[in-house]
């Protein structure tokens, strides 16, 4: 076993409370499969036999193999954590440290991608990296988001990612918000990597390969609570830290520990270079760079790499817009037949090839369904038109409805002849017959949503 997979599935989905106040984020249906199925499937495809899932008690109850519909025999090791207190991803990883024996692959439950995972792992292996991560070109969301039509999104602050000339070594990482005084780079870094590409418009997929010693470091440094927010920037920075010289013997290690205090243990100290590896590097003429005569990696012990997907699918389902987009892309990612065999569909019904119909659905006559997803056990009556919409499980649509560009959450009932365009209908909501709604949020009222947000704020 070379890598252990750790799936972070305890996030509350605080950026899309409209959807998650009733359904836990890992279980949100995307293409009629729970969201968590996608990262699990990704791992299964590349041959992982075991995965540690960190999640909450509520989610654990729902995580039955039957629900997950995984084909293989991947062993799921579900670890529950309490939601109380602010617990970040790094805290969660620390929580399962006893189970971690090798290097780890950490990923988030909201990742939907068709990445060839070996690209990231190969980078990690080839350079004996401390950390390798996945990024992708940011996709522009084209679909209209319910309840947000016409609203211009406030200019989000860009992430600046600096990579070397090969586009793989991660040299720099910062958010625009932290760069008010301008972007500063030490000259010594520029001398080592004289051609740096600064890229914006990248999506961090929150998929990381971490060396075992990094996990050890986390165990030592309890003040780091988030992987993305604290650990990764720290690692990127530490690549060019001044104190590259590894302490030679134990005494010095202890000395340096004392000097810096227990809480701020040098990560370098925990990366003990294997003797053989050092010898190989010494005797080999291979080098990772050209242009100067210094040794490979300039003698640096901490190395961070990034694989950037230039094309292909990569979404993080953490906003409503991303959720809708992911649903649109889902049919292309799933090999299952789009219409579940147990669904009952009348003959005089049009169901587009780009639509998915879930198990035990009942679709009546003279209905047309285009570019939409209909969840399991839903009922659609006669003369209904559904386009560009997502219906979760157990939704009932009465006769003559017209639903366009909307998201209907579980167990909602849409009354007869209702006309719903670009709306979000909350779970178990009832829409009155003949109602007309355009571009609005028809879930529980906003103040309730707000308080929910407060109580379930959870760094994803």
């Amino acid at each position, binding site marked *: 076993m070379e890598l252990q997979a750790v799936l972070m599935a305890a996030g509350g989905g605080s950026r899309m409370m409209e959807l998650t106040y009733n359904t836990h984020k890992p279980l949100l249906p995307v293409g009629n499969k729970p969201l968590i199925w996608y990262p699990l499937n990704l791992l299964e495809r590349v041959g992982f036999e075991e995965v540690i899932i960190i999640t909450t008690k509520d989610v654990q109850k729902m995580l039955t193999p039957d629900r997950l519909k995984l084909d293989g025999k991947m062993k799921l090791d579900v670890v529950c954590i309490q939601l109380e207190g602010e617990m970040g991803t790094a805290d969660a990883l620390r929580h399962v440290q006893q189970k971690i024996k090798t290097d780890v692959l950490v990923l988030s439950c909201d990742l939907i991608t068709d990445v060839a995972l070996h690209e990231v792992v190969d980078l990690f292996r080839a350079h004996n990296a401390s950390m390798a991560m996945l990024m992708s070109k940011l996709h522009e969301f084209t679909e209209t988001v319910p309840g947000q039509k016409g609203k211009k999104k406030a*200019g989000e602050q860009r992430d600046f990612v600096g990579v070397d000339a090969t586009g793989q070594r991660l040299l720099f990482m910062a958010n625009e918000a932290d760069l008010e005084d301008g972007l500063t780079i*030490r*000259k010594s870094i520029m001398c080592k990597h004289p051609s740096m590409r*600064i890229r*914006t418009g990248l999506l961090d997929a929150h998929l990381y390969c971490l060396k075992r010693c990094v996990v050890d470091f986390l165990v030592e440094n309890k003040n780091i609570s988030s992987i993305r927010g604290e650990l990764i920037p720290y690692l990127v*920075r530490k690549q060019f830290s001044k104190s590259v010289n590894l302490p030679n013997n134990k005494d010095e290690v202890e000395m340096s520990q004392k000097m810096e205090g227990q809480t*701020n243990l040098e990560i370098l100290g925990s990366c003990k270079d294997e003797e053989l590896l050092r010898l190989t590097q010494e005797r080999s003429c291979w080098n990772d760079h050209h*242009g100067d005569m210094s040794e490979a990696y300039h003698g640096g012990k901490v190395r961070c790499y990034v694989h950037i997907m230039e094309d292909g699918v990569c979404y993080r389902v953490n906003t409503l817009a991303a959720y809708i987009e992911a649903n649109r892309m889902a049919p292309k990612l799933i090999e299952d037949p789009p219409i579940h065999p147990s669904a009952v569909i009348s003959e005089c019904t049009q169901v587009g090839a780009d639509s998915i119909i879930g198990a035990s659905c009942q679709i009546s006559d003279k209905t047309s369904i285009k570019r939409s997803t209909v969840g399991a056990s839903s009922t659609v009556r006669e003369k209904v038109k559904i386009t560009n919409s997502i219906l979760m499980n157990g939704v009932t649509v009465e006769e003559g409805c017209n639903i366009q560009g909307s998201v209907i959450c579980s167990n909602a009932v849409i009354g007869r002849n209702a006309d719903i365009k670009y709306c979000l209908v909350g779970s178990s909501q009832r829409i009155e017959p003949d109602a007309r709604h355009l571009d609005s949020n028809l879930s529980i009222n906003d103040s309730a949503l707000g308080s929910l947000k407060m109580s379930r704020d959870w760094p994803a």
Partner: protein
Amino acid sequence: LARAAVDQDEEEQPLQAVLVADSFNRRFFPVTKDQPRALLPLANVAMIDYTLEFLTSTGVQETFVFCCWMSDKIKDHLAKSKWCRSNSSNTVHFITSDTYRSLGDVLRDVDAKALLRSDFILVYGDVVSSIDVTQALQEHRLRRKLEKNISVMTMIFKESSPGHRARCEEDNIVVAVDSKSKRILHYQKTQGLKKLQFPMNIFHSTSDEFEIRHDLLDCHISICSPQVAELFTDNFDYQTRNDFVRGILVNEEILGNQIHLHVAKDGYGARVSNLFMYDAVSSDMIRRWIYPITPESNFVDEEGKSCTHSRHNVYRGTGVSLGHGSQMEENVLIGQDTSIGAKGHISNSVIGANCIIGDNVILDRAYIWNNVHIADNVAIRQSVVCDGVEVKTGVILKEQCVLAFNVRAVVGPDVTLPEGTVVSLHHPDEEEEEQDEFLSDHAEAGHNKATKKDKANNSKELGTEGQGYIWKSSSLDHTKEDELAQSLWGLVLNPDPESDSESEASEGSDQPGSRTISPELDDIKVFQTEVQGTLQRGLEENIGCDNLVLEINSLKYAYNITLKEVMQILTRVVLEYPFFQEGADLSTSQYNTLLLPLLKGWAPVFKNYVKRAQDHLNCLASIEEFFLEHEAHWGALVKVLMSAYNLDILEEDGIMRWFSQEGTTDKSKLLRKNQGLLKFIQWLEEAEEYSEGD
């Protein structure tokens, strides 16, 4: 149809170039006192010939040569050259004026005379290049066609890693470029910088990929639009190309002009901007990196410049005689009719025409120009010996020496010139006496009597038969900042900034010793009282800091004070100011309350003088010196350092380095154990840890 005709017209315009045959700086002084830089021989060919060869081979049909200093010499040289023959494909025009003071003046004149009709190439007369700019030119024209009058300049760069031999620390740059459009967003020299700062507004949101490049060598070849000349006219404060580039980049949003870059994949391009580059380009030439321009190709088509090329890059002109047992190891070029004695050992060197070299001579990285006599048993390493110099027996020239032009310059016998010695027949003070000797030829008149006067003084250094003046005993002497800037050999390359900081620290440690030795104590005292007076007046009359700096600068010149001394004195005066105001018996807290507002008010003055890492150390050393003298007020030291740090006068790096220097005396060791200071240092350490993250 009419438009097509116009386009065609543009196509048919002959390609023009502006060649500036003057550097407008003194980097080759005093060598350039007798010969303009463009005519200095590099591998036995005048530098301007390389520039013209580059222009001609890249398709330039009309070149305007702008001369200022010694324009007649340049004119004579070119009149005899192949460029002025009737069959030359490149027509050379001369424009000379004594009033040019900068590149800006030249281009303003270009605009006034309306010489240029289309895009042109702008080069200096000391550029050696084999780059084919055709592609860059096409790109430039295409850009101008797509967006009229937006792109005004395309700068040509050559890829070259940091630490490459042909990269001079002094000319190192960092460039930020938009990956797709190749538009230059930021252009900055990196000399002396530890951190590179890029303003956020250059990362405009219309693009999502930028490149920051430190692996580029500025070839100083630019393809310019005709507007460049107009822009120089509009902005009379633009002096150099650097001013222009920065002006355009900063005002991009207002003026809408852009500068693009072209990175040449093939070819060679470099500007001989100082002797360091002279050394690098010469050795590249002999090692054939500038192919097809090679020493034996004799592209200038002059008689006597031809030579043969044999193994190990040994080139011999006609009529070269080599004594018995002499070895030419590798990379040696010997000009016509030069004779070399027996048992010599020559490597990596260029020897000009008609030289006579004695027996047992060792030359390594030596650049011997024409008509030089070198007697027996001479050793020359990495030095330049100009025309007509006579080197007597037993003379040893260490690295980076320069024996400047003059037929009668004699060195020796039996002396050793230390590293970085510059010898010229001209007296160094002539430079001071004559403000404009660049422009005047009267320099000859005064110096005969000067020679007599000071000959005896130099006999020790230059030997009993020596003639000439030593300009500088050592370029490694960093005490005089002004001279450092003029050092002929550029700064020694420090490939590794880490080691850089170490060397600086070690230099810093021997500062306290050298500081006390200052010959003109009186001047310094007077200067000190003047500075004090200036600051007092500034306080009373509420004079702005800019003006204070101006006044201090003029005092600096009046009393011939070095920058380092200015800083020491300024620090001392400010620290003593409270005593000056209120008398010597202040308590530490009174002292603090008086001093800190002063420090705040004068922070801009400090910042003007404290810029480089060395300045920080000097400033700290002065602060230390002051407090060593005022033991009672050690409590104030931390407050001073703290506010200097908060006011950005001092940086944490400097403070840390100063602190880590062992005190030389017991007292200064004691000072470093001051509790408050230790606390402050600890705080700084933590702050640094934290800020490293940003």
